[in-house]
């Protein structure tokens, strides 16, 4: 019974996807309600993807080159953000001294949207990988800190007591009790970070870059090539979905026993 209804919904979602593309095709190529300079048809988008796979024109790089450039920058920034952000959140939540000394600075910095840093970064670091990775870093870093902080603070007092009555030190209690409690929060933080860092990357590339998916979209706008814009958007969506799915399955492996 349960399996059957699941299948039913899968069929419904496939049908709605097909309907979406059909209406899109009808509005563009078939009835020409929307001119192709504003919105290319799905068929045209597919053709452009096929073409851009190996052709550098008109924006200077092939699609795989753009994807690689974007992944490099976002990978670097996101990883740095996670590697620094998660431990920082954990440390601030667990040790009061760190909380008192670091939290005010962090609370101020986090109110500034990462995208507002772009002009300064361009001036300071140029339009290279480092500048863009810094923007990505900032936007990944903040949700990582906030969520791991919240997660550690969510540790139940009675669980800490269990560890203490058994003679666990503060550090051991952190690793055995607080971090397992915080893990689901940390994963939420990573997923939020992934989304916002991917968004910040595209913004950074649109403002100053020589390659990347954001750059390709920007070039599409300058060259009035709506198909390039839509291809960029779709590829960004697909990659974002794949990365989120990866984090989801990693979470399923790491988080045990329905902690929340």
């Amino acid at each position, binding site marked *: 019974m349960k399996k059957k209804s699941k299948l039913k919904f899968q069929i419904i979602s496939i049908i709605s996807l097909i309907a979406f593309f059909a209406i899109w095709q009808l509005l563009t190529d078939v009835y020409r309600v929307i001119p192709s300079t504003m919105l290319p048809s799905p068929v045209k988008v597919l053709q452009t993807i096929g073409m851009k796979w190996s052709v550098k024109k008109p924006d200077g790089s092939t699609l795989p080159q753009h994807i690689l450039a974007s992944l490099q920058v976002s990978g670097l920034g996101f990883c740095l953000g996670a590697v620094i952000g998660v431990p920082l959140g954990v440390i601030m939540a667990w040790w009061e001294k760190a909380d008192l000394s670091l939290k005010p600075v962090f609370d101020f910095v986090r109110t500034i949207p990462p995208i507002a840093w772009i002009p300064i970064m361009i001036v300071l670091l140029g339009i290279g990988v480092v500048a863009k990775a810094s923007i990505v870093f900032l936007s990944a870093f903040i949700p990582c800190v906030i969520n791991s902080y919240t997660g550690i603070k969510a540790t*139940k007092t009675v669980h800490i007591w269990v560890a203490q*009555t058994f003679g*666990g030190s503060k550090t*051991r209690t952190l690793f055995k009790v607080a971090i*397992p409690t915080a893990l689901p929060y940390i994963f939420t933080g990573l997923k939020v970070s992934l989304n916002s860092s991917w968004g910040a990357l595209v913004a950074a590339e649109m403002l100053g870059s020589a390659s990347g998916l954001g750059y390709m979209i920007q070039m599409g706008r300058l060259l009035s090539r709506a198909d390039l814009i839509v291809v960029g958007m779709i590829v960004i969506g697909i990659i974002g979905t794949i990365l989120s799915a990866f984090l989801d399955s990693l979470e399923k492996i790491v988080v045990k026993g329905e902690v929340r």
Partner: protein
Amino acid sequence: MEQSGKIGKEKLSCRGITKSFSSSSGNFEVLHDLTFDVYENEFLVLFGPGQCGKTTLLYMLAGLEECTEGEVFHNGEPVTGPAPSRAVVYQTMALFPWMTVWDNVSFSQKVRKAEKKVIAERTQYFIDLVGLTGFEKSYPVQLSGGMKQRVGIARAYCSDPDVLLMDEPFGHLDAQTRYMMQESLGKIWENEKRTIVFVTNNIEEALYLADRIILLSDCPSQIKKEYRITLPRPRSLVSPEFLKLRKEITEQMNMSD
């Protein structure tokens, strides 16, 4: 000391302990001037009405709550904080949901960095003792209420404490399971003699398990009366002596001072 016919030497001694919580509306006294001892290998039941401060008292024995006045001694040493020699079975069970039954039970031994072989043997022994053989790899969410309480008891036992402090460990169970658990705790205690302080507000449970019952009054709690229970074990819940004591204690509890 003031007790005649004691079972062993004093394990825990409470000397004039008082606890009050301060709130915006002033001080709220929960426990008032309690003095009593817990003797070696004794099964002591703290019996009192709901909200009278039983959990608070137990936490003070454990060293998790500070005394406002007075002192608690364990083997003659003042209690200043939690210690592995006093294990607690919590009213809320407080199992780690991210750990399997095995990992929950062996937790104390791992914290202590015991030898791998010792950990494995002890853990299996206590899992078997509480009747959870076969559930070693289950997570707490997969267990029934009664099984979770068994894990809590096995975890406390496995840490090899000097004193076991149990806070209404069967409070959330239905009558049937509760009776079964009382029976098996009685057996476990006969096999593995320990000093146990057991909190409850259920008179049958108290009479079934206790060597001695300390009757607490309403908040602010004081010791109303003490009963030494010498009925032979395993006890029958319907023997005339049992029923007589039950009636006597219930009447005493409902009597206002």
